């Protein structure tokens, strides 16, 4: 499946760039997270790593569709 990944904050640094195109077998966000944590070990050191699709948080059970844009949300720190 082809996915577009958008990374903010420290995730952008870990992946060395803001946007990425991925071609992988993942069908849920849980699987995508597993893949990213294996590929980029620094994700495992974070306090948390959340995901958003269509500007809404989605948990690990969310089923991805071809060409989804998935946003990586490392620990937020507004205010």
């Amino acid at each position, binding site marked *: 499946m082809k996915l577009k990944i958008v990374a903010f904050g*420290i995730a952008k640094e870990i992946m060395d760039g803001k946007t990425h195109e991925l071609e992988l077998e993942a069908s849920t966000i849980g699987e995508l997270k597993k893949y990213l944590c294996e590929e980029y070990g620094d994700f495992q*050191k974070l*306090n948390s790593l959340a995901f958003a699709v269509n500007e*809404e948080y989605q948990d690990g059970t969310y089923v991805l569709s071809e060409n989804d844009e998935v946003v990586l949300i490392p620990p937020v*720190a507004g205010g």
Partner: protein
Amino acid sequence: MIDVIISEETLDPLKCAQLAQHPATGGTVQFIGTVRNNTKGKNVVRLEFEAFKSMAVSEMEKIAQQVVKNWGAYAVVIHHRVGVLAIEDIAVIITVATPHRKAAFEACEYAIDTLKQTVPIWKKEIFEDGEVWVAAHP
């Protein structure tokens, strides 16, 4: 009335108070978050804020709607700044106007606590000898 923005310009407490003005308000509470000069005793040189803008605005609107629903607020104004900020610059202003003041204190504190947990905004602290993404690591 809900007014939520993410801005690269200087934030203004007076403007926020005026936006939140309502003739039946008995109390308006404003939280002003500024850039601290130190973190755990270490000097901060400046801060850089980054936002996933469209979703951050949407999450801030959710908070504002909860405040209207749960505390009967007449007005909720949330202005958050992004970009490079110096010490003492204002990073966020949350203004809540309610019929009675106790609700305004509660609701404003709820809003800033929740903003810090849910709104996709990131903050990098730049020290004299390095930089750190705030809250990223244990």
